[in-house]
């Protein structure tokens, strides 16, 4: 990297505390996550269009290719590898049941987006679900099975409210 600089920052990823980590200022978050072995976050377009690299940053679903790793100082990040609470375990079961994935390349981003949908604790119809996931491209399934899965996950998540 010609003229590149590094910066030292602190952050939390999947409940693990990272202190005094030096990252190149030019590197995007997706590349950084992958460089530390969190390869479940996939890079599809590097311009924020496809959604494959979506991660959770301080509670919001964001494109890790549009954020520099140097911007995450003090932040809390969740990647697909860290989706292990009861809610997301259930969501993964539901995805499997509906075969809401084929090649698996979009799945990590799709799950993070689903998590954000579920956080709203709101019932959505199929059209609304389709709108919510329109920032996540899937070239294999045709989306229907993903919509089926999210529909069931929403039902399951709000049934006790």
């Amino acid at each position, binding site marked *: 990297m010609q003229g590149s600089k590094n910066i030292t920052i602190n952050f939390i990823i999947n409940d693990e505390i990272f202190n005094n980590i030096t990252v190149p200022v030019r590197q995007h978050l997706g590349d950084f996550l992958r460089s530390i072995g969190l*390869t479940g976050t996939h890079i*599809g377009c*590097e311009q924020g269009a496809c959604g494959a690299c979506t991660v959770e940053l301080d509670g919001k679903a964001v494109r890790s290719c549009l954020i520099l790793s140097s911007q995450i100082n003090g932040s809390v990040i969740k990647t697909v590898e860290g989706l292990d609470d009861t809610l997301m375990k259930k969501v993964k079961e539901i995805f499997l049941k509906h075969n809401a994935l*084929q*090649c698996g390349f979009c799945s990590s981003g799709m799950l993070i987006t689903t998590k954000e949908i579920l956080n709203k604790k709101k019932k959505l119809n199929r059209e609304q679900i389709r709108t919510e996931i329109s920032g996540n491209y899937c070239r294999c*399934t*045709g989306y229907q*099975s993903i919509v089926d899965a999210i529909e069931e996950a929403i039902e399951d998540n709000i049934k006790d409210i």
Partner: protein
Amino acid sequence: MVDITLNQNSKLGSIDRPNSYIGRSLTRDGAIRHLEGGGKFVDDLILPRMVNSAFLRSPYAHAEIKSINISDAQKYPGVIDIFLSEHIDTVCKPWIGVLSHLGEMRSPEQSPLAKKIARWQGEAIAIVIANTRAQAEDAIEAIEVDWVEKEPQINMETALDKDTVVIHKELGNNLFWTRTVEQGDVKKAFKESSTIVEATLDFARHTGVTLETRGIVADWDKSEKKMSIYHNGQAPHMMQHIIAKHFDISEGLVRVISKDVGGSFGIKVHVYGDEMAAIAASKILGRPVKFVADRLESFTTDIHARCHKISGKLGVDKNGKFLSMEINDLSGIGPYSMYPRTSAIETNQVLNLSGSPYIIPNYKAVGTVVFQNKTPMCQYRAVGHPIAVAITEVLVDKAAKKIGMKVEDIRKINFIPDDQYPNKTPSGVPLEDLSHQATMNKLLKIMNVPDLEKQKKLDLEKGILTGIGIISMCEVTNPSPLFYGVGGAHISSQDGASIRLEGSGAVHVSSSITEQGQGTEAIMKQIAADQLGVSMDTIRLTLGDTDATPYGGGTWASRGAGIGGEAVLKAARTLKNNILKIASAIMQTDIDTIDIANNSVIRKNGGEGISLKKLAETVYYRGHEIPQGTNPELIATSSFYIEGIPFVFTNSAMGCQVTVDQDTGLIKINKFWVIEDCGTQINPKLVEEQIRGGVIQGIGGALYEECVYDDQGNMQNATMADYLVPMACEMPDIIVDHVITNSGRSILGAKGAGEAGTGGAPAVIMNAINDALSSMNKEVTSQPITPEKILKAIGKI
């Protein structure tokens, strides 16, 4: 959705027996790894001493390289080396993308990197090897090239004109290949036709847009003289052969590993210069080299598809019977024919498949394939089908409307009747085990056409343009050696499977079919467990490794289930027989009195059996307890290829209802139905998901996707934001149902199911839109059918 479809294939045994898994929509348990972030994609791999690469690519569609100066770039931080064509060519022999069985194909030699002349925007010129991809990209900026721009040959329609630039001087003109198919007497039959309809359709270039871009890690171990390749491809053994051949390595010393692949759709089954250059760099440097394309590289170097202009003519008698069909197809394939499948096959499929559901006694098809200074074009999902199906089904609709018949009725009287197979396409290709009548009848029933017609009428009264479309089609699956092998390509039509019982009682299956998300892992396990009589959880599976799986063709042309699945079935049956022989010796009983169920050898008349675990332990650890001369074999390997016919065809009928917005030109697909006959369904849920995914890619081609070029050959929309792929919000739910006619070519009886959606959706959408526009007496003929084209058609702009 069908939850459990019991297979209707008596050759597979009773559905009531234990471990009956074929025909059931079991969950793809192995897919959990993707939901845990544990997929193993090429770019996830890091090897010791591995270096990265990036390519200097031609910014011009056609330009001469006067000189290249790499001296500044070589000094950039992290740069290890930079190779040009002259370096790469010292270790990699060139290739030519031609086959011998379809008449003369003319395409020049191609090397990994361009020499002297670049012939498309994006063609690789130099490979920079650096510690990181970012460093390699930085160094590319410092390579100085003295370019002399040449006039590009962009337009396929003027490619053969006298004054057009010739891309390869030695060929004399821009013709790659041409073929004429003729059956009967077309001229005479048109004279005898009471009605003749004509159409000319355009299909833009589009591409596969696999979400995971192409990637490779090449690892040359000079101590063993062994090349290990980690590749997100579809055909590991084909790549093994090609790499051995072009890099002069003994084939047994090339290992190709293809683990998780993030979508392929035919894009990842070809030989790409940049991947070959990365392999060459590894061989020169003696260390692992990674190349993973970025999205811009994908758009400008992954093969493109379609790019056809087709004219057709259909002659019918006064009763609506088809007498004669003639088509003339022109296609542009970029500057080279791809290797090793060639870029002739899409056009060849158009010639073979047009008119294929129908009896058309007189048929003529002419295909012409020309060179252009654009990205090379080759086989992508549903090769040729969208063009063949659309020209046929558009003409059929036109004929019906012209003679005042219902579109379903004209189809019904012209179908090859379901009870008249084996038969042939109008082009002369053998057909068998198809069911156009039954699938169409089922389609019309579930669509409820009268209701749709009623709604259309009501909509029209309100000024809303609603249209209904239907089509029938044949789908090429399970190719035999007569597809590629006969033409000299070393592309295996055979697949192999090996199954062994291990000491723990676990069953290990390996297959030459690979997994790209279709569910190969699940169906191979289902077939093995079903045929062996063991539970699903006893099966372990290895795919995608030339060192560890039997030889075979891999995953393309919807051949995995029908060919690879049959190999697994045969191996499982052989292993079962082996086990029963051993068991009969141990149990001192006749082989006919025992069977395998629930992981044990059982006595058919009751009584104590023996678990497979115990049997395996006896064989592996206490062979002295087995009668001498039993020769126990707890492993079986089988293979299979289709004999006697070129392909096992599947057939489909599709319908859709669309609304055309007269103000915006936007199309809304309200409903979409597919009836597919792919024979035995090993896992109905996975079949349906193949169909749905296929339909969505077909909708992409029909309405959105296009590689847009300017007149200088620059691709204008090579980003995910500018190139429109279907998004969730604009896609319909798709209703899928089935007719089941087993293939008689195998015990399993399975045909393929991955192409139909992509092959049929463009035609049925075009028919539905034109039905909607018919009240205004307008039509569209060019795909993608963009809002602009709609508005132009209805005279709004």
